[in-house]
């Protein structure tokens, strides 16, 4: 049913509008409001699952208001859906549903605003994934953004909330305006806003300055959204203060949507035009690997648990970008599976942190040392999810990472794998340190500087009610998500299906033809893979690498917990000393710095790409 496509975006919007219009009626009836929101998310997830199964067989193209292309010129807006975009949208819907279940009855409520904001956030995310028009993508990007800014500042009585929201809003707005400049620039050359038409038009001529500049500018906003170094500073500030269900969405899906956007823009519009694959590939990979390592180092240093998880998201965003940068189907398939696994695991981790905040009233790792022993079930879920984040084999995260590493021979397998392992070990070590220290009381509480202590203390409980037991509505989503990460990891035939989807995603010519023909269901004839399709299986080397890195993470976590009891003093992880302080200084909390770094980063990115492609 073609009509499902617009419904996936319009239904949450209509429900959000209805909830707001009937605010006076629904405000006292919290359970009804929660139920409406959860049912809407479930409905959207179900519709997207149906769309996903349909998209697996054919290219789904839907033209709004019935305006089909007029002699090859697209005059309306379209939705062009294939399995990867449908899958990502479905993931977004599932996570929003989990977040709404988590906040059932407990999250401090202000009229109907929270639910309306979450539903429009969902609509923006789904629209962003499904659309085939670059300006439409910008509109949904902004809708996602505005809802996100408002959700970050949901508790304005905390000072950190406002700082986080302001930094988030200003940095991402600058990015959005830069992207819009890129869109206008490309429009000036091609006279089109439809991605397929632009791609077909740009591919006709060899790449010149305009193509490169257009690509870099459109990517700018998406790079900022994906929190790639040096555009990443806002993420930690925003995550530390947003309500827990919102953090689930930021880390699980929003950042990944930025990366999806980069892949989509490249493969739909600029792939054939830019041509010089090695240049693009290396530039993106360098930024990705830098992000992975920087994120992991900051992650290890943190004591505020939500900020720690935020830095781990930054690190993983770098890994995802590297996978995309490989420009092969195996790389993209690896990223897709890794994203799913990471989203499920990270969501579970954040929900556990939310439970801790609800029951124990703090997110400070030092202060919470050993107190988590009163939350045994949460501890188990957190530890399982932590192992998932450390890429233990059997989890989907490990599966995806293995494929990316296998496919990295196009760049430099040794370097890529080494850096991947380093960042995994650091991130895994940090999260396992939290698990061991907080929930099992192992070792000594990690030390922290007074300034860090003050920061984490500012985070107060989000739920005003009594904290005797952990409600089921909080535990169940966390458990289900963590379990799902394992289930996805062991699904048979996943590799072949995802890789086929990746090949289709990267087949620009077929996409352009399907969209511009105006009809749905045109069978793409023999998509041409630009690199040989390597089989997406589980290789021995990737399993060994993964097991090795997990063992190293465990050892690192134990070292971080017990180092004071060893005769060998290791001061490397003490916050606030020496080189660490210099590096820490970059994350200053001042938005002026963030924008300055973004401009410098963009100048570097653009300059390098210009030189590589010239």
């Amino acid at each position: 049913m073609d009509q499902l496509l617009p419904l996936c975006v319009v239904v949450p919007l209509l429900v959000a509008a209805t909830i707001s219009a009937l605010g006076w009626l629904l405000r006292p009836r919290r359970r009804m409001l929660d139920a409406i929101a959860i049912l809407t998310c479930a409905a959207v997830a179900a519709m997207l699952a149906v769309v996903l199964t349909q998209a697996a067989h054919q290219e789904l193209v839907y033209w709004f208001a019935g305006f089909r292309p007029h002699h090859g010129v697209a005059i309306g807006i379209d939705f062009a859906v294939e399995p990867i975009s449908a899958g990502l949208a479905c993931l977004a819907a599932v996570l929003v549903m989990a977040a709404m279940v988590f906040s059932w009855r407990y999250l401090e409520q202000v009229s109907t605003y929270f639910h309306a904001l979450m539903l429009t956030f969902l609509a923006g995310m789904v629209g962003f994934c499904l659309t085939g028009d670059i300006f439409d993508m910008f509109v949904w990007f902004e809708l996602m953004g505005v809802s996100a800014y408002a959700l970050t500042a949901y508790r304005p009585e905390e000072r950190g909330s406002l700082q986080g929201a302001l930094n988030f809003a200003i940095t991402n707005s600058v990015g959005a305006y830069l992207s819009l400049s890129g869109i206008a620039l490309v429009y000036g050359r091609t006279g089109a806003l439809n991605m397929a038409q632009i791609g077909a038009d740009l591919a006709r001529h060899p790449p010149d300055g305009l193509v490169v500049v257009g690509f870099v500018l459109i990517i700018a906003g998406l790079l900022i959204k994906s929190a790639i170094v040096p555009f990443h500073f806002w993420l930690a500030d925003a995550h530390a203060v947003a309500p827990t269900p919102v953090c689930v969405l930021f880390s699980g899906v929003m950042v990944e949507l930025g990366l999806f956007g980069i892949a989509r823009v490249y493969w739909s519009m600029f792939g054939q035009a830019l041509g010089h694959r090695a240049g693009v590939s290396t530039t993106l990979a360098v930024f990705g690997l830098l992000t992975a390592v920087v994120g992991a180092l900051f992650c290890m240093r943190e004591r505020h648990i939500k900020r720690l998880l935020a830095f781990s998201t930054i690190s993983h965003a770098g890994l995802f970008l590297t996978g995309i940068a490989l420009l092969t189907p195996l790389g993209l398939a690896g990223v897709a599976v890794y994203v799913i696994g990471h989203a499920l695991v990270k969501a579970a981790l954040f929900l556990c942190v939310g439970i801790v905040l609800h029951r124990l009233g703090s997110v400070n790792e030092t202060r919470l040392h050993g107190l988590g022993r009163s939350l045994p079930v949460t501890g188990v879920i957190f530890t399982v999810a932590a192992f998932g984040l450390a890429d233990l084999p059997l989890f989907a995260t490990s599966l995806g990472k293995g494929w990316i590493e296998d496919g990295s021979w196009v760049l430099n397998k040794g370097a890529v794998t080494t850096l991947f392992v380093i960042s995994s070990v650091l991130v895994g070590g940090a999260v396992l340190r939290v698990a061991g220290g907080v929930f099992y009381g192992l070792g000594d509480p990690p030390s922290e500087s007074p300034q860090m202590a003050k920061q984490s203390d500012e985070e107060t409980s989000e739920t005003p009610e009594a904290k005797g037991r952990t409600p089921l509505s909080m535990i169940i989503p966390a458990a289900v998500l963590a379990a799902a990460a394992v289930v996805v990891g062991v699904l048979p035939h996943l590799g072949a299906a995802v890789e086929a989807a990746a090949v289709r995603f990267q087949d620009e010519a077929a996409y352009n033809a399907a969209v511009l023909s105006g009809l749905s269901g045109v069978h793409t004839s023999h998509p041409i893979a630009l690199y040989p399709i390597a089989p997406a299986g589980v290789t021995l080397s990737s399993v060994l690498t993964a097991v090795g890195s997990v063992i190293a993470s465990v050892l690192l976590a134990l070292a971080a917990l017990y180092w004071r009891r060893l005769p060998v003093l290791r001061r490397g992880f003490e916050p606030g000393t020496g080189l660490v302080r210099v590096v820490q200084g970059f994350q200053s909390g001042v938005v002026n710095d963030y924008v300055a770094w973004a401009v410098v980063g963009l100048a570097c990115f653009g300059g390098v790409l210009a030189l590589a492609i010239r």
Partner: protein
Amino acid sequence: MTAVQRRWLFLAGMAILAGFYLWGLTELPGFGNYPGPYGFVINRIAVAQTNATGVVSAVNFEYRGFDTVGEEFILFIAAIGVATVLRQLRNERTHESAGHEGLGAGSAETTDAVRLATLVFVGPAVLVGWFLGSHAQTSPSGGFQGGVVLATAFVLIYLAGEFLVFRRFSPIDLVDSVGAVGAGGFAAVGITAVALGLPYLTNFLGLGTVPGAVSSSGTIALISFFVGIEVAAAFVLIVGELLEQTLLVQRGGR
């Protein structure tokens, strides 16, 4: 980073970025030489296809109507976001009952001249807003422009010094609901097309006989109406919240 370091870092980056940007811009066809097909095709077929002589409105509400739905909701959500962030917090209390004295140091007494001048314009503002909102398909106007002028009428009441009258005419819940009706109404017009078996946002109403008449162009006029009330409600909500925050709400205990 110190302010000086930051400035030099930024200037270095911006110099490169500006050069880079200019490099791309100089490859454009040049000012006045718009090449591409999209605009020309639309100009050729719009009047015949939609019976609207205002082609920009036709693009906004018809050809690219789905973008406009998204943008409507952005404005709606921003208004909700403003209301969320500026809501009264638990340790603050209001001086609702005190009338002029309760407005605090923020508002000044207005002179009769100011009051007369602003109130005289309230009626014309409403009329102009209405006119603009209903002529989207005819001439340069449309729901957005009309909605903003309509919101101005409310702001004029505030400028006349009558903040409490302003608040009584536009209580937050009502304005919220009106905005939601506007945004939802737009989305619902599209859904009606789906219910009729057509693609979302298809123009299913009669197109009228004369291009550019107020009754022509089918759903464009209807959508423009919804957009108008939504924009007006959103701006009244935003302006009202900002004013209320500075005038009425004070920290408990002062």
